[in-house]
């Protein structure tokens, strides 16, 4: 007779698969080590640090949204409180000369996030769905408004600052230069990513998915969805606290913006644009959104509008996010039918790009007339110079926008047909979607 447990458990992974799996993490670690050698300027090191912080924060958010199906509008609370506590901790350690080096300080932020998630989570996670979203919003507003009232602790509008170099030194690292902060952030990013990935593989992680998909059934099996949501919420708060702590160490300041609605909105944007369906999604989203916000703000003054429009476009056209879009093509790639859709993509991209260009042109000319009407009408946006007063530019914007829209609509239906054809061929070849 066969052992029932061994037949129910998934097959033990082959050596090659295990090698691939661990190789991926080792490769990531090596990439993090080598990265500053390739891009050694101060600006890029700061960017990498910000991306690392954003990755931890977005992944912690995805424990809620992607893994457990809870849409939170107030995740920055745990990030911000972690940051504030860490600044206070650094000051306290510095004054009392406690034997605590900086690399373990983010743990204080994590524990702060955990503590507040434990306190606030029980009430918040009683329901999921819209009710949870509204509660998280209310709690976030409550904490953010309180932060402005409790001036001694939160430092009012200006915030509080600390000096990170005054702590106990290990291996003679002062953590003054950005490169050392980069390595600190990189190490914590790797640890947090591995930990959060491991969390998704535990029974708790699986129950979180079950609660997301069918809470009623989870109850029948004998679990309390509320408890599962609460545990997920606590873990999420812990990692958000670590991210906030790293941000506070990076900037050496914590202010009320850390707790605010903008911060909560940014992490939601990053996670959703990256894609909530896959573990790697928030990582992609964090990289994309951080680079986008840094890059766009150099190119145009109204970058936040583009940011919002990109988000809306993702919600409407690609609910799976960037990774969702890419992963859709995996079965086609396996079956070798990808070549069926690629030509139609190329055809569809031309009018779509024209439409987007027209839209950008229209926005930039409007911005010229409303934001700085007195200036010279020869403006520069996205590195292109043009005359905002010229009627040709206006006509071009209108033609690109309307013409592009009409043609794009036509071509995207072709893409749809090509897609259907390719997927049905894939199905015939027997590749699981």
């Amino acid at each position, binding site marked *: 007779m066969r052992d029932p447990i061994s037949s129910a458990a998934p097959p033990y992974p082959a050596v090659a698969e295990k090698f691939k799996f661990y190789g991926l993490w080792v490769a990531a670690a090596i990439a993090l080590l080598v990265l500053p050698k390739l891009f050694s300027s101060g600006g890029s090191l700061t960017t990498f640090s910000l991306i690392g912080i954003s990755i931890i924060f977005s992944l912690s958010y995805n424990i809620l949204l992607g893994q457990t*199906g809870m849409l939170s509008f107030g995740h920055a609370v745990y990030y911000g409180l972690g940051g504030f506590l860490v600044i206070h901790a650094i000051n306290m350690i510095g004054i009392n000369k406690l034997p605590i080096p900086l690399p373990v300080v983010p743990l204080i932020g994590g524990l702060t996030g955990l503590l507040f998630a434990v306190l606030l989570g029980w*009430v918040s996670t009683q329901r999921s769905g819209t*009710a949870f*979203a509204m509660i998280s919003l209310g709690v976030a*507003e409550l904490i953010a408004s309180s932060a402005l*009232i409790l001036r001694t602790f939160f430092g009012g509008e200006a915030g509080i600052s600390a000096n990170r170099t005054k702590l106990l030194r290990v291996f003679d690292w002062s953590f003054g230069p950005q490169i050392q902060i980069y390595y600190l952030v990189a190490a914590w990013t790797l640890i947090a990513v591995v930990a959060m990935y491991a969390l998704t593989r535990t029974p708790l992680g699986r129950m979180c998915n079950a609660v997301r998909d069918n809470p009623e059934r989870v109850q029948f099996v004998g679990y309390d969805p509320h408890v599962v949501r609460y545990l997920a919420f606590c873990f999420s708060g812990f990692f958000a606290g670590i991210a906030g702590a790293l941000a506070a160490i990076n900037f050496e300041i914590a202010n009320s913006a850390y707790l605010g*609605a903008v911060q909560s909105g940014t992490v939601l944007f990053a996670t959703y644009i990256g894609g909530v369906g896959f573990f790697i999604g928030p990582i992609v989203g964090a990289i994309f959104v951080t680079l986008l916000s840094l890059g766009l703000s150099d190119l145009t003054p*109204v970058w936040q*509008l583009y940011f919002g429009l990109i988000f809306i476009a993702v919600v409407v056209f690609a*609910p799976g996010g960037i990774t969702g879009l890419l992963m859709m093509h995996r079965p086609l790639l396996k079956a070798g039918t990808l070549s069926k859709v690629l030509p139609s993509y190329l055809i569809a991209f031309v009018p779509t790009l024209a439409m987007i260009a027209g839209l950008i042109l229209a926005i930039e000319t409007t911005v010229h007339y409303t934001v700085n009407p007195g200036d010279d009408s020869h403006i520069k946006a996205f590195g292109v110079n043009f005359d905002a007063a010229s009627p040709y530019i206006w006509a071009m914007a209108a033609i690109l926008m309307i013409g592009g829209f009409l043609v794009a609509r036509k071509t995207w239906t072709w893409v749809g047909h090509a897609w259907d054809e390719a997927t049905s061929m894939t199905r015939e070849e027997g590749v699981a979607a």
Partner: protein
Amino acid sequence: MLELIVISTLNGVLFGMLLFLMASGLTVIFSMLGVLNFAHASFYMLGAFFGFQIGRWLGFWPALLIAPLLAGAIGAGVERYGLRRVHKNGHVAELLFTFGLAFAIEEIVQIIWGKSPVDFRVPPLLDFPAFTIFSTNYPAYKMFMLLVSVVIFAALLITLKKTRIGLIVQAALTHPHMVGHLGHNVGRIFMLVFGVGTALAAVAGVIAGPALVTQSNMAGLLGPILFVVVVVGGLGSLPGAFVASLLIGLVQTFAVSMNGSLSGAFGPLSPDYATTWLADIWGVTIAQIAPIMPYVLLVLILIFRPMGLLGTRDT
């Protein structure tokens, strides 16, 4: 003291009625589409800015009519071409769509009208004190605001309860498929309701614009309070939204006008508290914590009565 109570009650009821103008639309939209419209306060803001701009070109009275129609048309368009597309991706996608929309609308308003408050004035016809109580002049414009809100409230109630359209809307709330089978275009009803709901928010914006500050952050300030109203009243309950609007209006107005603090009440007992880190909590006045009162109320309600004051379903 009596003066304070009378004036605060008037202001509180006024603010509550304004909140209800918006919360009613939000509640009906929620009951119908099952999605909480995050951008609802943005339509309030659009109403205020449209009212300001049209008021400049044509005067206040045409603006009071045109601005809500315009905002309502935009709202209907959003439902028809945005929400309906997103609907198949589930409620989270719908909520996120309105969230992104709120973000984009705020940016667009900032681009067009700038970040600083615009000079939206009370129309000269109403720019006089209506009456004087206890040496305080009460502006006629505020009475006008109250009148408009009450009239719209009554009209809404009669439309929903007594007319044929109201009956169909009510039926579509609970049994959209049955209403569809009876030959009504449910999609169009949804669009209509969304348009009317956003238009109501815009009316609130036009009449509140001159009295409060018309600025690009007004949606961000009011939006969360609006959600508090809807959740406290009970998701999907119109009478609940009414009670909660008045409650929050009164709570906030009374809190703003009070100056008491813990140190004022108990200060002489232990004066040394004022020097410790507790000084913040010790010295803060009720007026200062007025902005967080709605959220405290929200948390209390969620702990003790999770379905809201008059709500029936425990979502």
